[in-house]
């Protein structure tokens, strides 16, 4: 199982070696895509986690035991389909090709699974259709 998730930490969890435990105790492969840590405020980590289904579940349980909020990535990045005009500007800057053009329909498609939450699309979208709710 492989999934991109957003972890939100309370201030008092920041000093715990949580990612180390995920690897050591649950045999999970992790890839940190984005991190925003502060000892004075709540922190955020965007991670891809991969491993056996069973371990994955246990790992998530472990994270939850530390009072960490876990959200799927698509919950925090979304496209306002009523504003999107399928111009293609976002696709031209999207490095992981999460936003890409279906060359048959010439429509812009969004594959959440490839998104690394860099937010470049939010900055370049001419019609303000991309929303990211990270703090």
């Amino acid at each position: 199982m492989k999934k991109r998730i957003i972890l939100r930490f309370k201030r008092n969890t920041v000093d715990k070696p949580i990612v180390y435990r995920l690897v050591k105790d649950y045999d999970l492969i992790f890839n940190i895509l984005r991190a925003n840590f502060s000892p004075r405020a709540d922190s955020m980590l965007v991670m891809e986690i991969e491993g056996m289904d069973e371990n994955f579940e246990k790992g998530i349980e472990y994270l939850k035991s530390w009072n960490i909020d876990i959200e799927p990535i698509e919950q925090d990045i979304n496209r306002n389909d009523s504003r999107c005009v399928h111009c293609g500007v976002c696709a031209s800057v999207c490095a992981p090709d999460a936003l890409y053009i279906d060359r048959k329909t010439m429509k812009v498609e969004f594959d959440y699974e490839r998104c690394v939450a860099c937010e470049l699309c939010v900055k370049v979208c001419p019609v303000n259709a991309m929303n990211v709710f990270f703090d």
Partner: protein
Amino acid sequence: MKTIEEINEKIKNGKVVVVTAEEMIEITKEKGTKKASEYVDVVTTGTFGPMCSSGMFMNVGHSKPRIKIGGGKCYLNDVPAYCGLAAVDIYIGATATPDDDPRNTVYPGAFKYGGGHVIEDFVSGKNLTLVATAYGTDCYPRKKIETYINKDNVNEAYLFNPRNDYQNYNVAVNLSNRVIHTYMGVLKPHLNSANYCSAGQLSPLLKDPKYKTIGIGTRLFLGGGVGYVAWYGTQHNPVVPRSPDGIPRAGAGTLAVIGDAKKMNGNFLKGASFIGYGATIFVGIGVPIPVVDEEMAYLTSRGDEEYWAQVVDYGNDYPERIPRSLGEVNYAQLKSGVITVSGKEVPAFPISSYSKAVEICHILKDWISSGEFFLTNPVEPLPGIDSGIKMNTLDERTLEGIYNERK
């Protein structure tokens, strides 16, 4: 040969055969141009892209006591409108930005709200704040007004876009060593991305490349409503390199268009922000092309692989006005997502919406098929290939130089 009058008669009788530009390509492949010209009466075309030279005239009505906004200052949702006209006539241009917008002082600027957004909000039926100041006269004593206007309480509101619907356009690349923010989008350095802006095989003026049927007065789809060609657009430049059949291989023709903004909608007029460049508006335009003869059947049925565009460096050549092309590519190559420039494979992305252009072709087709929309003969043709038009440049002249020119 068919006349516009004959086609309109068929529209009236519900017997007209209207197809979209995409459909026309297929029909002609099947039937050949001769049969296609007999079978098809109208081909609908469309384009939906950022078009900076757009704006809206409005007459906001008279307040009590009266105010002469003309010659004063006026803001719509904090965006300045032009008011060097009569008392209550104003014009809001798509690229206008609020006085307190930081613009590019913190590069690249975001340009989150500008004239294009005001126009979108207006046609969507929203209330806009109107703030105007004036100097006061005997007949227009008032000096300040703050109120809300919308499409129901203003008098006339019409789009008047001095340059829309470019016949063809550059493919933008960046040969410099840094990311640049342009009206063609964000361009990666060292020739690592290419952006283009045309609906290619759907684009109105590409389907009538020699301006045989599209002229001044032509009725068209504009911003979700009905509009007209008011004049040839600014920078209309028919004298460019062309294929043997007359299809331009560079920018070429443009249209100035006009239409009732109150009947338009936000699906086809979308305020836009180009990071580091400015505010603008996406405009949807569709033009019906009458298949008056076999030549028009041929021209309306060309596919993307027959439309060529020039690749231009926006890192240095474009800003420095160096007229250099890095090569030619066609729209089939551009749509495939990869073009070859100077021997290098470069990813290609559109900045105008092909899918919206398709939508416009279909809407216009429905309007005509259902007898709501009739075709027009041009009042005057657009300046053509033989017009001898030459684009002028803006040179820095001095008084001394002008004096010497006279001698």
